[in-house]
């Protein structure tokens, strides 16, 4: 079997020969030179490496590039369009959702999925649903504020939430 992966990254189709053991995070950073996706822990805990695979937030350090064959990936580099920030990026700027910035790209990608897929978010549900992303600086307070602000933009704007689930956890 040819060791070739072929996928779409931020709307651009890419094909590369890689070893099967290449992680998706490594593929993005080292093979495509897109270093916006960070590697914080490399043990599936911190969420810094979060990207969207066919719209689902996943930890790219815990997926082989081969497993992403044929999918469409969105990374932090693909969020802004025509020089305009994505609503989640704009909310992070407005509400000071970052300090050192290391967790930010993963945090933003995770929150993009959150506001796209979930309706009726409140502070408690945002805190709970962000448990796959760790931030060592902010204490989360402004991240939660930014998330709720971005969710409001989504709810009122054209970017309607795609389904109506909120919290399912008991």
């Amino acid at each position, binding site marked *: *079997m040819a*060791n070739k992966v072929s996928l779409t990254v931020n709307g651009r189709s890419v094909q590369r020969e890689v*070893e*099967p*053991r290449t992680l998706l995070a490594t593929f993005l950073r080292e093979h495509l030179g897109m270093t916006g996706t960070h590697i914080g822990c*490399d*043990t*599936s805990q911190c*969420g810094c490496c*979060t990207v969207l*695979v066919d719209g*689902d*937030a*996943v*930890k790219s350090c*815990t*997926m*082989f590039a*081969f*497993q992403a064959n044929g999918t469409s990936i969105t990374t932090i580099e693909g969020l802004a369009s025509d020089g305009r920030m994505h609503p989640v990026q704009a909310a992070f700027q407005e509400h000071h959702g970052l300090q050192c910035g290391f967790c930010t790209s993963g945090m933003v990608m*995770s929150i993009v*999925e*959150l506001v796209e897929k979930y309706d009726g978010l409140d502070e408690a*549900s945002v805190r709970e*649903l962000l*448990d*796959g*992303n760790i931030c060592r600086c902010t204490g989360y307070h402004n991240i939660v504020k930014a998330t709720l602000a971005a969710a409001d933009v989504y709810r009122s704007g054209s970017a309607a939430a795609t*389904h109506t*689930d*909120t*919290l*399912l*956890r*008991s």
Partner: protein
Amino acid sequence: MHMFEYLQPRTAIEAEALLLANEEARAISGGMSLLPAMKLRLAAPSHLIDLSGIEEMRGTSVDDNVLTIGAMTRHAEVARSSVVRQAIPGLAALASGIGDRQVRNRGTIGGSIANSDPAACYPASVLGLGATVMTPRRRIAADDFFVGVFETALEPGELVTHIAFPIPERSAYVKFQQPASRFALVGVLVSRSRDGTVRVAVTGASSHVFRVPSLEQALAAEFTPGAVENIAIDTEELNSDIHGDADYRAHLIPVLTARAVDLASKPDAVGKI
């Protein structure tokens, strides 16, 4: 990480043949347990057999009071599935509490039960609901499936393709989670079938998921939280670690069982919506 070959079969039979042909080959579904183990070199497969292209192992359906879930169904899909939420809301709630959103977007029910992690959530549902594990070769009763730490009744090369859950009258899962890993320090699934049979399955407390007959008998007589509150649990087979000793886990078992009975008795066991 060691090198390996990556193969992507289209059918379960083909996947089983590839696993049997290569002694050190391993199946990979969500990769949420296997990939971290490979990074740590706790696992070093010669071949990875990726099950994600096998259509027959996906999806949910209800037939004759049995909910069948394909092994490749992801935790997030089970949590959101209107079929599952209507048939067994406690199972959807369990799936929505596994790990975090990113883990739920990748991890699968088949991978979780084949892995038989002592602290995993799904094994409690398979045993506590009296499910049947289906493979291309046979059907395995839940009571015979989980046999030890990371050990199941699956033979070399044998794959889980579906899990068939009889739909109970009511059920609920309550987990006391280890806050860093989010796995169960102790988790309890309680179910009562339409004929009044009660099953109580406990995860996180021992080498693998197990049933507790004393709690089941008390709840069969009276399905209330009060019926189990004062039942003492033998500590001999229970785990002790830095997160909690055997006495602590023994204490949690009836406490969580009572909470699960309470939750199962509410009309909407999915919890907060």
